[in-house]
């Protein structure tokens, strides 16, 4: 029995001449929260669609031991996802959506969904069409969190929602859903909001995985130094990934350079994930 939820070997996808995903190999273990980060059109959704059995692909891909392209129905017993657009059927009433999921999904716990929904203002007798954007997401989240799945994929789940709701969304995901027997994959542009819950990250650029790392290790690797005036030359010798000027002082970002050495150059600080992403995508000294 494998402990990997996803095992991809040479996974690729082309549309004609355009390679949306270059051959990629990666493994995602159980009990992780993985952030997949990349610019628009970098290939995040393409990769996730392959994993979810929503499109054909080249290469080997195994998700929970299933072949997603031929066994999507079976796969969805253990995998759940929220796509990057509102997908709940607008013509259905909230209660009818719950009836349907209860009918087709053996791992759906309706009582649990009701307890999630009772904390919201989502009205049961209304059609999905009549719900606000926030309520629709709350409903969808209540459904997926009540399904006892091993893998949950969230593609830009909080797009267009206000900040209070986004905070609640991730809080309940972390507190009430996630455990060591599940893996969650999140893609989002709002990196700052997810970085504290992620255990792993993957950066994608132009259809290529450029970085795959454990969050703790990653944040330790990158250090930003606000260089003390006069030490600029010394700082430049250590090969910074990128250089900038803040408040008239030179700032340098380093990867895998001893923290004590850097401390001698000036004030050091850890980088946030967004800054690491930008540095990795634009930096030269890798």
């Amino acid at each position, binding site marked *: 029995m494998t402990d990997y939820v996803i095992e991809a070997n040479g996974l690729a996808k082309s549309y004609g001449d355009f390679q949306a995903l270059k051959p990629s190999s990666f493994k995602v273990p159980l009990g992780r929260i993985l952030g997949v980060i990349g610019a628009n059109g970098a290939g995040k959704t393409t990769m996730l669609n392959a994993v979810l059995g929503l499109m054909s692909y080249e290469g080997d891909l195994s998700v929970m031991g299933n072949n997603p392209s031929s066994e999507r129905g079976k796969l*969805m017993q253990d995998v759940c996802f929220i796509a990057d657009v509102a997908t709940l059927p607008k013509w259905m009433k909230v209660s009818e959506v719950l009836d349907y999921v209860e009918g087709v999904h053996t791992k759906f716990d309706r009582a649990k969904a009701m307890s999630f929904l009772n904390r919201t203002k989502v009205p049961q007798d209304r059609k999905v069409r009549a719900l606000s954007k926030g309520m629709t997401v709350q409903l969808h989240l209540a459904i997926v969190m009540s399904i006892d799945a091993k893998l949950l994929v969230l593609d830009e789940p909080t797009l267009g929602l206000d900040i209070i709701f986004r905070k609640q969304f991730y809080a309940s995901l972390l507190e009430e859903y996630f455990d060591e027997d599940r893996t969650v994959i999140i893609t989002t542009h709002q990196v700052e909001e997810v970085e504290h819950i992620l255990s792993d990250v993957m950066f994608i650029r132009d259809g290529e995985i450029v970085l795959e790392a454990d969050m703790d290790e990653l944040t330790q690797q990158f250090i930003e130094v606000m260089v003390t005036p006069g030490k600029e030359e010394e700082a430049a010798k250590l090969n910074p990934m990128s250089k900038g000027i803040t408040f008239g002082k030179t700032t340098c970002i380093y990867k895998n350079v001893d923290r004590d050495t850097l401390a001698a150059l000036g004030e050091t600080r850890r980088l946030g994930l967004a800054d690491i992403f930008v540095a990795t995508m634009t930096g030269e000294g890798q």
Partner: protein
Amino acid sequence: MNTYIALVKREVLDGKNGYIRVPLILSALTLAMVFLSSVGVGELNLVSDIDHHEVKNIGDALNLAQQEEAADLPAGITAGYWVISLLMWAAFPFVIFFSLLSALYEERRDRSILFWKSMPVDDWQEVAAKLFTIVLVTPVIFFAVAIAAQLVTALLLSIVVLFQGGPVLELWPLGLMISGWFSMFGHYILWALWALPILAWVLFVSAYASRLPIMWALITPLAVIIAEGMFLDTHVFASWLGRQLGGWQEWAFHDLGRGLDIDGPRDALNMVFGAAQWEALKFSLTSMRFWTGLVVAGGFVYGAIELRKRGT
């Protein structure tokens, strides 16, 4: 099994305007007309060859019919009850056509396909459930409404005739009514199997078209007919379409009239409910065209499933 029930229930909910409201409203409309006119029937001189001045209302008419056409009366009444649901059945092909046309199209347009695909239901199950609901569950609902309308009509007329004084029991030819329900449904099944390649074509288009599925569904066969006429000067495709959509009955019943002396509604009804059903079944099962049509239907259904696998 649960999955299947949930899928069919969802389809019925999705199409409830066409599947439930249309037959109910049209039947209610007809019933209202029947009731109002039956109460108001005066002298039946409107019908050209009826010239009985003693007939003042439905009750009288029934009395007269009982005296003069006793043998044909039950059949005549049964046939009359089917006429009541004509309006509803006229809408039926449209309901079927538009339901098939939107079955695999709307879910892509509103992106709900991504939600359905997040559930442990295979694409073939989805397509099968849609086809099953539209081709089989919808007519069951229509038949149920038709039967209810017949019973309500009989009840309303009974009340009217009770007041007017007439043979109320003549309004309840139950044996004929019941055998009519079964044979009509059986005939529908046979009709649907013949029409299946065309029904499956519409379903295939709904999975294929990125927009305007109705244009694809109608213009493609039209283009084939025109091209065939222009370049080959033949009408093979058009006659195939006509045959699958009901023209086969002309062939199936080709020999039926011979040797039979059809005189009045009783003989006609006996034939339709009895011999015709067996003739049609026998003809179909031994017809190469019938089986070829089913194979073509299978091809389109397979295509629809494959397209749905790729659709997002």
